[in-house]
């Protein structure tokens, strides 16, 4: 056996999975409620004890790879100049590195903005602004403002290279930890995130996992790679599934939707090229790997927001297709209110299962529309033209669903239908006819942790554990926390 251990210190659960790389299979999985608030070691020990049931090996010696989103994850503030340009580029860079954006501020930081920034308690600040040779004034102003602010958070400076070093000096002289990176927006139509991602990964290990006690606990394991943020692991899995291991075909463009209680995350591995002829692309260029986090969409804490965005009647119609007749808009509102007050609510009976799936489908619909691009028709002097902003995800081959409501609910496929285009909304460039897979056992993080070193094994394991919704032969039993 060629064993590999993957651990995710999540915000609600500490998860562990043990893989046999030689046979490309999952040996065991275990979950424990997260103990980050008290002692992160307790949850880890419990997970290891459960995994131990599956193997005679000493798990502390098995090569381990770890990701973490615990203790608030990687909380980042991004600062830029123009909201649709350097600030947007900074947000994409941070999200793509697996961060949770706790503040995004454009233009010169005012006093009131600075106090919101400090109140957001970021682990890390990304300071951008100006293309190379472009605006200097704003990023210099913002560097001075951040230098004066009594915050210990490290700062990555990734703006106009003509003054970026000056910004680092201003911050360093004030005793701040500041690091220089290549401009994330060197030209108006080019985003460069490679160096920023590298630095975020390094600072994540050096400062954030240490500060949160995760680094210390991970030392009990045979840690063979640096700890990365959990969303970064999921993005790696997304990329591997889309592209395939070296010399093998992948699935083609892939979208992962993760519906949680508070947020709905969408990941895409796709260059988003137009799927229709004669399209003019505008706006910032898109990265192949893209992650968006919808902080207002979740099927528990934010259930009421979904009702506000989509309307109780529409959600009711969805629910009634699963549970014919019985429900009205008031039922939808009452259920949404109830689950937002009780985020641990587990649906009971067919009616609640239908309502849960309808909420999830609605959350997915809004989240994928925000993630994907849009197209509009314009009548030019040369005739009709289509102008596309953002990614065209029309040709996405596979949509993978993650999250309790999809994995354990009865209507996972129905919920995932929210990601598919309908004739009523032709301007949203969302998938036309994808196939669905469900991450029933929460293993995407593990696949992502193995993806770079063992792409073949990780890909083969993924093809065994990601199951079509109709699949009745589950390889692994549904997971329930111990």
């Amino acid at each position: 056996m060629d064993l590999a251990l993957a651990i995710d210190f999540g915000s609600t659960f500490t998860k562990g999975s043990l893989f046999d790389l030689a046979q490309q299979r999952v040996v065991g999985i275990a979950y424990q409620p997260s103990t980050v608030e008290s002692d992160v070691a307790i949850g880890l020990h419990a997970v290891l004890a459960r995994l131990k049931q599956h193997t005679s090996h000493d798990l502390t010696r098995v090569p381990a790879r770890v990701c973490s989103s615990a203790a608030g994850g990687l909380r980042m503030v991004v600062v830029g100049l123009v909201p649709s340009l350097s600030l947007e580029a900074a947000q994409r860079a941070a999200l793509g590195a697996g961060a949770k954006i706790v503040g995004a501020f454009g233009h010169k930081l005012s006093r009131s903005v600075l106090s919101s920034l400090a109140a957001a308690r970021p682990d890390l600040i990304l300071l951008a602004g100006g293309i190379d040779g472009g605006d200097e004034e704003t990023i210099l102003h913002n560097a001075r403002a951040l230098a004066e602010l009594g915050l210990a958070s490290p700062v990555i400076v990734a703006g106009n290279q003509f003054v970026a070093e000056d910004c680092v000096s201003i911050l360093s002289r004030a005793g701040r930890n500041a690091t220089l990176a290549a401009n994330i927006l060197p030209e108006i139509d080019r985003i460069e995130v490679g160096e920023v991602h590298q630095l975020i990964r390094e600072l994540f290990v050096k400062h954030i996992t240490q500060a949160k006690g995760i680094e210390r606990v991970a030392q009990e394991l045979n840690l063979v790679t640096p700890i990365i943020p959990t969303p970064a692991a999921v993005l790696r899995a997304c990329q591997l599934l889309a592209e395939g291991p070296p010399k093998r075909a992948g699935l083609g463009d892939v979208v992962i939707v993760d519906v949680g209680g508070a947020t709905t995350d969408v990941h895409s591995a796709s260059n988003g090229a137009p799927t229709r002829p004669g399209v003019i692309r505008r706006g910032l260029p898109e990265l192949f790997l893209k992650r968006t986090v919808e902080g207002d969409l979740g099927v528990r804490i934010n259930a009421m927001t979904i009702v506000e965005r989509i309307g109780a009647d529409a959600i009711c119609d969805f629910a009634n297709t699963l549970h014919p007749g019985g429900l009205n808009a008031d039922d939808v509102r009452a259920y949404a209110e109830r689950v937002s007050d009780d985020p641990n609510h587990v649906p009971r009976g067919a009616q609640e299962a239908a309502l849960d799936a309808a909420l999830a489908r609605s959350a997915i619909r809004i989240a994928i529309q925000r993630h994907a691009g849009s197209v509009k028709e314009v009548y030019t002097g040369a005739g009709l033209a289509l102008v596309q902003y953002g990614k065209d995800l029309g040709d996405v081959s596979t949509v993978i669903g993650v999250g309790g409501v999809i994995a354990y609910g009865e209507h996972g496929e129905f919920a995932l239908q929210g990601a598919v285009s309908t004739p009523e909304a032709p301007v949203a460039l969302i998938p036309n006819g994808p196939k669905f897979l469900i991450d029933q056992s929460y293993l995407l993080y593990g696949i992502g942790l193995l993806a770079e070193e063992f792409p073949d094994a990780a890909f083969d394991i993924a093809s065994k554990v990601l199951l079509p919704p109709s699949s009745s032969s589950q390889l692994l039993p549904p997971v329930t926390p111990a």
Partner: protein
Amino acid sequence: MNSPESSMKQSGEVAAARPSGRQPVIVLGTIGHDAHIVGSSVLRFAFEEAGFRVVFLGAVVPPEEFISAAKESAADAILVSSMYGMGRIDCADFGDKCKEAGLGHVKLYLGGILVTDPEHWPETEALFKGYGFDRVYPPQTKAETAISDLKKDLGLSS
């Protein structure tokens, strides 16, 4: 957008003409629902050759994108091309929008086939200058004219 050697040399000369030593930056594109890109492409290469840093936006560019790009690049000038006769609609409040965005100091140039009515150039020019443009050019204007005007307007030549 690699500049050829001659452009590098020129850019040094042009930049050296300014107290800051900073290469002058222009934002350039075709405004509105106008897909014509040849004219602005020609201008792009001519301005690069003349030593300017060109932030090229292409065709079908909403006015707001010129303004955003000019802010991010701290542009010295915005050059707007309009070739489909709808200049009035696209440009009517362009100068005001720039002022509102804090770009009152940025030179605004406009050129192309600006109106569809039979052309009375002095009226057309006055109309668009009223919209806030510093210089307005009729069709067939040579790139050199605009380059020479801009150098003058930016104090890069006498």
